[in-house]
Each structure stands twice: as structure tokens, then as C-alpha cells.
């Protein structure tokens, strides 16, 4: 059974969102996603300053098996990316909600947060 922390919000495409103290959104992929993908070997992240729209493919994670698009859970401007992933993509496998985070957005439209799933709804979507 995969781990689904209750303080995060989720998308159907297996990204998680954490609203930080500075009200930026930190984004990563779920434990379920990393487990399904297998060992991650390469991550392509957006550039700081990129403006992205909700639903856009904005990053790629590649495991030994396959490449998967990451879709922006929210619209925003990229303010930080996890540079440690360049040398160690396996951080996503080891700690998907912590050291394996992908990037941070400055939120443009806070209303979009209301459309995300809570932990319970995400867990239900996995059972379907």
C-alpha cells in the first residue's frame, strides 16, 4: 500500500502539491507513481522563470522502463527546481514527498487549489 500524506493535495495524474509557508506551491510525484515507474534515472525540469499553465506537461521523469510527463497541477511561475535530482534522480524513489520534490511555483490563481484532491479522494481514485 502506497503512502499518501494527509497534509498534501493531489492530482489524478499522481502529482502532489504542498502549499509552503511563503505561499508558493511545491510539487512532486506520489509514492504510488514512483513505485509504478520503478527506478528513476533521469529528470527534465522546467527552468526557473518559466510560466506554466495548469494541465501543461512541464517536466519529464524517466525510469528504466519509460518516460512520463509531469502535468502542472496549478498555473504559476517556476521559482525553484530541485537541482539535486540532476545527479541523483533516485531521490524520488527514496523520498517522493521530501528530498524528491520536483519544483516550486509562485501561485497565480489560488482558486485552482480548490480543484485538487485531498488524500482521501486521491486514495479512492487509486482503488478505481
Amino acid at each position: 500500500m502506497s503512502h499518501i500524506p494527509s497534509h498534501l493535495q493531489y492530482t489524478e495524474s499522481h502529482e502532489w502539491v504542498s502549499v509552503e509557508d511563503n505561499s508558493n506551491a511545491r510539487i512532486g510525484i506520489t509514492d504510488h507513481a514512483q513505485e509504478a515507474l520503478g527506478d528513476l534515472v533521469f529528470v527534465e525540469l522546467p527552468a526557473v522563470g518559466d510560466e506554466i499553465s495548469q494541465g501543461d506537461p512541464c517536466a519529464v521523469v524517466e525510469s528504466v522502463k519509460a518516460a512520463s510527463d509531469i502535468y502542472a497541477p496549478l498555473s504559476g511561475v517556476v521559482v525553484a527546481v530541485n537541482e539535486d535530482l540532476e545527479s541523483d534522480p533516485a531521490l524520488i524513489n527514496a523520498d517522493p514527498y521530501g528530498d524528491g520534490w520536483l519544483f516550486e511555483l509562485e501561485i497565480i490563481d489560488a482558486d485552482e487549489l480548490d480543484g485538487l484532491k485531498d488524500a482521501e479522494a486521491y486514495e479512492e481514485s487509486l482503488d478505481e
Partner: protein
Amino acid sequence: MSKRTPLYNAHIAAGARMVDFGGWEMPINYGSQIEEHHKVRQAAGMFDVSHMTVVDIRGAGARPFLSYLLANDVARLKTPGKALYSCMLNEQGGVVDDLITYYLDEDFFRMVVNAATHDKDLAWITSKARDHDVEVVERPELAMIAVQGPEARAAVLSLLPEDEARAAAELKPFNAGQFGDLFIARTGYTGEDGFEISLPDVAAAAFWDRLLRAGVAPCGLGARDTLRLEAGMNLYGQDMDESVTPLESGLGWTLGLKDERVFIGKQALLDQKARGVERQLTGLVLKDRGVLRPGQRVITQAGEGVTTSGSFSPTLQKAIAFARLPANAGETCQVDIRGKLLECAIVKPPFARNGTVCEGMI
């Protein structure tokens, strides 16, 4: 309804993630594919390959039949137990399948063919056998376990009775023999030393458990694929099929073309050689960060080509691939990865074998 091998329950018990492979429910990994890969390069791992098809060719006409059926020359099989890798071709020189043939006796040869091509292979072999004094006998009751890695042979030998262990320890590479219930071949698909063991299905789970207790790590099809790719070994259906010849698939070395022997597809190969082989299967190493995958467009000085297999190489820690490229493609090329052109070195596989990176690969 997908088929299950006699080791299905053992895979589930070991926490395997199962996938469909050619109609069989097979383990893709038991957790980390990369750890399994390293285990085989550095110690010992085992693969359930019971989905592969064992076909015995029996009868006085066995050798002449195989001499006609196979592109490699069974005349090279001079001593009982010796194994030969070969392609089986159609009249156009296209690859019907690749397989290993073991010479056991003048009236008894054993072939191991791919699982995904089972039906067409059996139909092909049986139809070609009609004019020969042979019997084609499939052996579905045999399971198969490949134990691979520098510590693999010692682990297997430790489980055999003393006299059998002593005899099996003498097997040279690409040789096989029957030891009690076990048909043991010193062959593999990883670029490491080891054994491929055929045994009765009813005995497979117990033998698998003994290997586990001897410290051999269960490994899935995922690691098997990256290991064979590093070792420069083709995968049927991906690196070659009926639309290409062995000459276009890096398998010229497996063709017995030098004498008068007649075999299926020979004339097409001779014609192609005379015309000049326009495409070659070669290796790529990505110089930049990224991952090579099958089906990516390759741009060379001599024109375009395509990757046929590609992955991240755990041993090189870089992306590697096979690609079918125009002849005279040179030493470097570019691969189109999601619209970006990334630089690759063109190299001659293998990339890694016997626990280490091959010369000139990094």
C-alpha cells in the same frame, strides 16, 4: 487468459511486480530493477525463463534438417553438449526467430526458441520438417531457470550431489549436459558467466527456493533487458524481425556462408552481400544527460536511422542503445529525444560484460 509458469507463486511470494510478456504473466522486477541488474554483474541473480520454448529434434535426419533450417552451421557442433546460437530465416533472409541449438546425440538436438514467437516457430519448424526424417517434440513440461553472475556457477554447483557437481563444474562456455533431473547449459543472456537450467516443472519451485537460500537474487525481465542490452545481445521482435536480415542486425558472425551448404534464406543473404548491406545495427552511447528508447530518430552524416532498443545502462551510468543506421554513419550522430537533438557516440557493442564496462565505451 495469460499463462503462468511453475514459479508464479514463488514470484508473488517474493513481491514481484508482474506484467504480461508474450501471453505469459512474468515478473518485471521484485523492487528495484537496477539493484537486480548490479546483483547479476557483481554476484548472482536468477531469472524465470520457463516461458521460453524447448523443442527437441529427434531422428536420423536431425543434423541434415537443422543444417537446412538454420543460418548458422550445425557442422560446428562436433562434440555432444555443444551449443550454437543461430537465426532461423525465411526465403527472403528475414529473421523468423533467433535460438540456441544443443547437440546431444546424432539423432537428438535440442532447440530453445523465444516465447513470443512460439506459435509461428512451431508451425515453421514443423512445416519444414516434413521432408526430413525427424520428429519435432515440444517440451512444455520443462521449466527453465537462468542463474547468472560471477558467483552463479558456484551457487548452482553447491546444490548438486558431489559427483554431478564435479562433472557440471567441467562444463565449458556454450556447453551443456544432463545431470540427474537437470539439463544444465553454460549459456546466458546477460554477458556474465552462469548456467541456464531446464528441469521438470514439478521440481522447479523447490530448486528456485534452494537457489534463494544459496544467496541467489531473484531478478525480473526488466534487469534481463538492461543486462542483455549492455552485453550487446539482440532481442527478437525489437532489434530484428522478419523485415530485416542478420546482416542488417549485427549478426553476420552467426552466418555459415562460406561453403556449399544450402539453407533457407541463403540466396537472399548472398544477393544482399553482393549488392552491399545498406543498414547496420550498431551501438550508441548518449553523451548528454537523458535516456535513449526504442524508436527514436537518429541523424547521421550518411542519412537517418532509428534506435531499436535503448535504456539507461546501470553499469555505464549513461544511456545506451542499439540503432539501425546507414552504412558509413561515422563516429557520432544525433538522436531526437522529444524534439531535442542530443549527441551520441557510435560504438561497437558490447557495452559491458563480466562485471565491467567494455573498453572505449565511456
